[in-house]
């Protein structure tokens, strides 16, 4: 049993008059029997958690359709339980009607658990009374029974049996919410692992790229390396061309009196002179070179046939 002396105790019923509370005043609520459904049941289970799983089924055919929350506690006798079904929205709407912010509600209890100790019918307010019938707290209009007195709420010591109101149960079904939220969390975790894995791979590759610099003894920047590579590629290409053209020229089949008198390679340019070549009979040289893809400029002067080739 817990005594909460700090907070005002309020019996919440649709028929009570409007209560006046200070803005920040905290209240403990005792729910009127008209705000919940209650049953006393005997079940062959010893664990309260197992009982709670059965509650929707136990109320299934008894209560009207609606969005219900369920609660239960042991009656004190083995395997005997008080089980409850209540509509959070109905209670919350009543709190709103009473101008009680949900943030000011310290705890919510059932009249069943809080008034179970009364001996006779007791007047709870101007219009209603409570009494116990077959261990169940019942709410009746005042005139139905003869009361032995008025129930003083300030003398009530609250039990540990309290419930939490699901403020959004009517908007999002909690099962769906947990399902969606769980799926999203799992997805976030999978994505997180994926991001971590890909980032590690990216970092690993960046490290491997850095290692290339030391392995191949490269310059610190790619700009320098590209410039050096370009220089060497240029040298390589020119040298390959020089050898290709030299080979093409040396493989020319000259006629009997024809001679190559000069081969001069300088500043990426090749000049070749032939003597003994007849002016109009140069095609056996020029056409062969053209077929081999050698680009040249030729001229004939003073009996000398000259070719100029640019690399």
């Amino acid at each position, binding site marked *: 049993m817990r005594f909460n002396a700090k907070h005002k105790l309020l019996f919440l019923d649709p028929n009570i008059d409007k209560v006046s509370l200070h803005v920040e005043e905290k209240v403990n609520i005792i729910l009127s029997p008209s705000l919940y459904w209650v049953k006393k049941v005997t079940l062959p289970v010893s664990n309260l958690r197992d009982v709670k799983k059965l509650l929707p089924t136990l109320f299934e055919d008894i209560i009207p359709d609606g969005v219900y929350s369920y609660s239960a506690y042991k009656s004190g006798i083995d395997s005997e339980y008080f089980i409850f079904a209540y509509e959070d929205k109905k209670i919350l709407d009543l709190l709103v009607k009473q101008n009680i912010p949900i943030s000011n509600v310290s705890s919510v209890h059932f009249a069943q658990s809080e008034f179970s100790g009364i001996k006779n019918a007791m007047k709870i307010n101007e219009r209603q009374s409570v009494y116990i019938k077959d261990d169940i707290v019942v709410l009746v209009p005042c005139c139905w029974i003869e009361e032995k007195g008025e129930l003083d709420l300030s003398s009530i010591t609250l039990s540990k049996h309290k419930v939490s109101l699901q403020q959004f149960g009517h908007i999002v079904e909690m099962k769906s919410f947990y399902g969606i*939220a769980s799926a999203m969390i799992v997805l976030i975790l999978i994505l997180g692992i994926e991001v971590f894995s890909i980032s590690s791979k990216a970092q690993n590759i960046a490290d491997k790229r850095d290692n290339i610099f030391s392995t191949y003894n490269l310059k610190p920047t790619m700009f320098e390396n590209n410039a050096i590579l370009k220089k060497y590629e240029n040298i390589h290409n020119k040298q390959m061309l020089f050898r290709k053209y030299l080979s093409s020229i040396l493989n020319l089949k000259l006629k009997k009196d024809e001679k190559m008198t000069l081969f001069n390679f300088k500043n990426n340019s090749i000049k070749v002179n032939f003597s003994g070549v007849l002016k109009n009979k140069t095609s056996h040289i020029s056409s062969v070179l053209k077929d081999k893809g050698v680009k040249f400029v030729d001229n004939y002067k003073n009996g000398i046939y000259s070719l100029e080739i640019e690399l």
Partner: protein
Amino acid sequence: MNRINPIYILVLLFVVLLVMFYKLDSAKAELKTNLASYAKTENVAIKLSSLKETYGDKQKIKKSLQKILKHSSLKSAGLNAKFKNSSLVIESKGIDKNNLNFLISKIVNSSFVVSSMKVRRISPSKAELFMEIRW
């Protein structure tokens, strides 16, 4: 008893999910960039290393040239070879055609950088030669 609206939690999770998708996208882009950069660097490194070994190893080039010039076939060629800091100049006023063929085939079949070469015929069996090889 003041609870957080579950819708807010779902919205928060959704925002986190969007952030994670964005992070995943960024990580994939980074991986792609790094892979491309790695491939490019490796390609440059391999090419550069190979070309440097061919054209940039001065000692190896000098040794190879000295070996060619000392070859028995060229002993009687009367070549005038001058090694400079970054080049070799080979000159001859009258090299025999067989020696000339031997020398040119040795030079062009190796990976020397021939910067200039002049061969002038002076008789049916002799020629004047000027050749410069750089490194």
